[in-house]
């Protein structure tokens, strides 16, 4: 059996966050009545012409810059000609030999000898989306809804330099994070705002020439992408081992059976007959405008991670989690600012706050405990004014009722009580309620001290200073 090497390139289509379509003023919103968001341009009525959306150009440029691409000052739209009922003009307006951007690279997140593994990009270009076909609603007919037709996309094409399913997954997660950070796209695969096509081939390890590739479509999650690559890799290896040849074809991922199956050919052979779109003069971007777009990009995930490690002394794993989204990272820094304690801020956010968000389904910006209030809570805890458990309890109350932590803690009696009089009173009550345990404790069973402290803490609803309670209890047996 030959030792095969996997060769994968990814084509990612990503929907840009615009209000209107790429070439007309129709809404890009989802869930409207079929064909409600269509006009002469996106219905391809005779005589209608495309006019380019400025914001789509800006978002595509920002995505390209964030991916380290070189944005071309002149790029050209081209027609990709094929017949399909969800493609109203009979051609897709895309970019071909002069794309918006070239070069660039994406970090897979996997470290090879401690160094980042970068996957180089071939190009980033702009194009319009097609409409949707509904097949199960009318007997004998497919139903065409062109609401999505003309939605602006960027297509991000990697070099065929991905060598494992895990690297493909890492590439996609990083890519998604960058697109989200730059606010260019929702980049949600389940919702279809990010779509991935996999080009895959194998070759004997050490061989220079590329093998015949297949293309896998219909993937709706990153884990499906990874699984499909593994399955197709195994399929191709098995064919070659059996002396067969790989057939160049398009495959569809079958999520239910964990396998690929051939797509029935899309209406004959492919010859897209690309030529420059005569309805649109070239897209010309001023160098100064491109520079301004670059300057206004937010801090990107990799840079932010490096800074968090250096500035806050946190571990790589925690930083990875804190920078999962730009919003969480920003929130974290606001809590650090308010609390003056990065360690505790990280613990609170990655523990209590994330758990609470998971339960409530709220986004971090909507969480009722604002960074300023969480910061104040952390300060009370750090100063010893709140016990751990009282702090957690107070957080729950702040989530429910809102309000400032100090006044809430006072109202609820959660501030640590170290005043002897109050503590002695709670201890006396505990002794009265638990005569057996207190009797055995007084008779010398020192291990019961912890149990009694627990009862006192409970009675004080966490406000008693446990150190002081311990001292007072110990004094009773020696006194």
């Amino acid at each position, binding site marked *: 059996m030959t030792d095969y090497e996997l060769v994968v390139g990814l084509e990612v289509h990503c929907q840009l966050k615009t209000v209107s379509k790429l070439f007309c003023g129709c809404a890009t919103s989802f869930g409207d009545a079929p064909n409600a968001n269509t006009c*002469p341009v996106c219905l391809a009525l005779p005589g209608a012409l495309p006019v380019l959306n400025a914001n789509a150009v800006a978002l595509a440029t920002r995505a390209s810059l964030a991916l380290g691409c070189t944005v071309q000052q002149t790029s050209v739209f081209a027609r990709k000609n094929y017949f399909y009922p969800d493609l109203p003009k009979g051609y897709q307006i895309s970019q071909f030999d002069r794309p918006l951007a070239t070069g660039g690279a994406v970090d897979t997140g996997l470290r090879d000898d401690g160094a980042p593994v970068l996957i180089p990009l071939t190009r980033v270009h702009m194009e319009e989306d097609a409409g949707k076909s509904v097949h199960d609603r009318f007997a004998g*007919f497919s*139903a065409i809804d062109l609401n999505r037709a003309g939605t602006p996309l960027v297509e991000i094409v990697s070099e065929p330099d991905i060598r494992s399913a895990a690297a493909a997954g890492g590439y996609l997660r990083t890519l998604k994070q960058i697109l989200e950070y730059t606010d260019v796209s929702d980049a949600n695969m389940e919702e279809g705002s990010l779509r991935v096509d996999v080009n895959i081939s194998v070759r004997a390890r050490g061989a220079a020439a590329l093998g015949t590739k297949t293309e896998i479509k219909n993937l709706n999650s990153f884990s499906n992408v990874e699984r499909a690559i593994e399955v197709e890799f195994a399929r191709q290896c098995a064919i070659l081992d059996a002396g067969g040849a790989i057939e160049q074809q398009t495959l569809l991922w079958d999520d239910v059976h964990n396998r690929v199956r051939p797509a029935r050919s899309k209406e004959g052979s492919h010859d897209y007959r690309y030529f420059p779109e005569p309805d649109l003069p070239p897209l010309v971007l001023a160098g100064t405008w491109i520079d301004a777009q670059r300057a206004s990009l937010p801090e990107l995930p990799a840079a932010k991670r490096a800074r968090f490690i250096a500035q806050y002394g946190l571990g790589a794993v925690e930083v990875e989690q804190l920078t999962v989204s730009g919003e969480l990272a920003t929130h974290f820094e606001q809590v650090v600012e308010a609390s003056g304690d990065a360690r505790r801020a990280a613990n609170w956010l990655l523990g209590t706050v994330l758990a609470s968000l998971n339960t409530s389904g709220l986004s971090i910006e909507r969480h009722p405990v604002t960074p300023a209030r969480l910061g104040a809570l952390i300060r009370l805890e750090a100063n010893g004014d709140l016990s751990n458990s009282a702090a957690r309890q107070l957080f729950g109350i702040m989530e429910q009722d809102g309000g400032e932590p100090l006044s809430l803690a006072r109202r609820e009696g959660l501030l640590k009580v170290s005043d002897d009089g109050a503590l002695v009173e709670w201890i006396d009550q505990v002794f009265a309620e638990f005569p057996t345990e207190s009797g055995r404790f007084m008779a010398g069973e020192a291990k019961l001290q912890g149990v009694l402290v627990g009862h006192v803490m409970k009675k004080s609803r966490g406000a008693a200073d446990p150190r002081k309670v311990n001292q007072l209890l110990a004094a009773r047996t020696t006194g």
Partner: protein
Amino acid sequence: MSVTEQDVRHIASLARLELDDARTSSLVRELNGILAHMDVLQAVDMSAAASDEDAIHGATPLRPDALSSLPLASERGTFAPNYQDGFFLVPRLSTHE
């Protein structure tokens, strides 16, 4: 260069045109007749091919990202061959039969 009957069938298939045998062979003749006149272009020296220096147009204008849909004076159903419940209907796609 000349066009064969096979070429004509292939092109017709790309262009979604249905040709009977008689029309196919007459198109072979007609296209070859026309293409013969195009052969003078093959003699053009392309080594000095011009670049962008004299592109026809300037830069494409951009429109603001705003909802400004061109209105339709009549309902989609009034001009569509088969329109139901807001959808354009086509014969069921072969991939979904």
